[in-house]
Structures are given as C-alpha cells and as structure tokens.
C-alpha cells in the first residue's frame, strides 16, 4: 500500500480489495489507514459479514464502470484461471487516475508477461519491484513465532507439524525454499489508469 501516491492518507478513496478472504486485511486497512468511507471487499468464499464484503468473481467484478480509486489484490491472482480477464475488469471498474496495486508470488518469467498484459489494457506502470528478500526475512520472523507455538502444542497437533509449517511457509518447506532460492519471486506492482 505504500506504493500508492496518497499513502498513508486513504480516507477519501473508494477502495476495493479483490480476493479479500474473510476480511481480515480489510480490517487491517481500516485500523491502520481508516476510517475509510468506502472500503469494499470481494471474494468467492465468504463466511464473515464484515466491512462490506460481496460474493463475487474476480473475472466478473460485480461493480459499475469507473467506481473505484484504488484496487488491491494480494497473493491471489496466481490462482485465477485468467489473470488477463481479471486485469481487464480492474481497468473497467477503476476511475481515471485510479491505481491498481498487485502483489503476488510468481515465477520470474511471469513478471514481463503480467506487466505487458496490464500495459496492453492501458495501464501505466508506476512502480514495480521484486521484494523477495524482504518477504523471506518476514517469513523467517513469523515462522519463529509460529514454530514456538507449535512446540508447545499437544501431540495430536504436532502430528500435523509438516502440514502446518507449510501453511506459514516456514524455513525448510518447499514454498519457502522456492522463494529463498528465487525460483519464485515476490512481485509488487502499481499500475495507474491514465
């Protein structure tokens, strides 16, 4: 979010997070940058009615043209069947001057494909960085905390230690090693609809 030109003052922006999950990131945005008047989340799986969440498909965003100033999508588009269709929808629902911030774990070869796809729609790349090293450092930090909790857990929880460690991308797991060795990279891009 710090890539956004108006960071940290988001209170007057109409913000959409696509694939917002259960809304915890929306709550984080509200807590750290709020109060935000128009903060909406969209996901295909929703169980909590918080912060204006809508059941919706990223490939078919249920919003009017030129509705939002800021779209956020974090670690989700790599799971979509058609990221180009998703980018097209982001372009449609963004106002002119609006910003689409995209963060994801991708293969290095995907970076230029993603950027070219966005530019072909009319987006202008305002910021692009690979922050894999910082993310790995962050995973080291969070994994230490979770590993400590896991060590104190009952035996029937510890039985699933490997699976649990994979969920938080702990050192030694396949997902962690892919990032550490940069077989996969963490991409942060900000595109603007001009």
């Amino acid at each position, binding site marked *: 979010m710090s890539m956004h030109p108006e960071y940290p003052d988001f*209170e*007057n922006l*109409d913000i959409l997070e696509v694939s917002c999950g259960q809304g915890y990131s929306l709550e984080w945005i509200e807590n750290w940058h709020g109060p935000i*008047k*128009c903060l*909406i989340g969209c996901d*295909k799986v*929703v169980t909590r*009615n918080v912060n*204006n*969440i*809508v*059941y*919706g*498909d990223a490939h*078919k*965003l*249920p*919003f*009017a*043209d030129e*509705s*939002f100033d800021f779209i956020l999508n974090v670690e989700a588009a790599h799971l979509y069947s058609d990221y180009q269709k998703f980018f097209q*929808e982001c372009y*449609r629902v963004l106002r002119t001057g609006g910003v689409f911030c995209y963060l994801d774990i991708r293969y290095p070869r995907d970076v230029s494909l993603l950027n070219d796809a966005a530019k072909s729609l009319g987006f202008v790349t305002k910021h692009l960085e690979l922050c894999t090293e910082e993310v790995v450092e962050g995973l080291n930090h969070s994994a230490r905390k979770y590993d400590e909790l896991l060590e104190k857990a009952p035996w029937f929880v510890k039985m699933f230690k490997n699976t649990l460690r994979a969920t938080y991308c702990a050192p030694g797991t396949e997902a962690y090693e892919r990032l550490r060795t940069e077989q996969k990279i963490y991409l942060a891009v900000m595109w603007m609809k001009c």
Partner: protein
Amino acid sequence: MKLFVHNFMSSRFLKNVTVGYPLELTVKQFVEKDIEFDRENTIVMLDKIQYEALLVAAAAINQSDRIPAEKPSKWDELSDDQLRQFHHLLMNIDVIDGELVCPETKTVFPIKDGIPNMLKVDAEK
C-alpha cells in the same frame, strides 16, 4: 450490506448486459445503526455517488422522503440536518436480507446475512 455498497454494484458482468446499473433492490430485513455523522466526510461521499441509484436504495427501505427527488446542485450548501439524512441512508442502513436484481435480464442475486451474492452460478440456482 450498507446501502452505499448498492451504489457501486452492477450486473455488467452478465452476458448481454450493456449497463446493468443501478441494480433493483428489494429489502426484506435491515437494521439501522448509529454511525457518527461528519459533515465533511458526508460531502466527500456524496460527491462520488450516483444519485439515481441512491433513490432506488432509499425507495427499497421506504425512506425516500428523507431526500429530494432531484439531486442537490451543491452538497456544501445543504444544512447539517439535510446532510444527516443522506448520511443515515448511506452509512446507517445495513441490509441483512433481500435481493439485488439486474435491470436488464432480471437475474436475481440474493442478499443473505448481510452479504450480497453476485456469483452468477449461484444466482441461477
């Protein structure tokens, strides 16, 4: 679903829909909250909303009399009491149960437990 969310929503993604806005709204159950009013924040919101859609939302909860039928020309010329009416509609009304309907195809999207379901497959069941 707060009423201001209705102002953003569209069925444009449906096949053969050219505009899909504003969505028709039926409200079966709603709750009224008491979010703190702020004049400046309300004006900022009103500058961006589509008035036609707001009228649809107000009518859905039988509170059309709170706001004029014609969009005011300048929001900052309204009194606090007048702006409170708009604030009430946009921020204090939370729709729990209802339906959103595409104005072109009449596809129905349910609102259950406050969450609108705009997944087309579910809407066609």
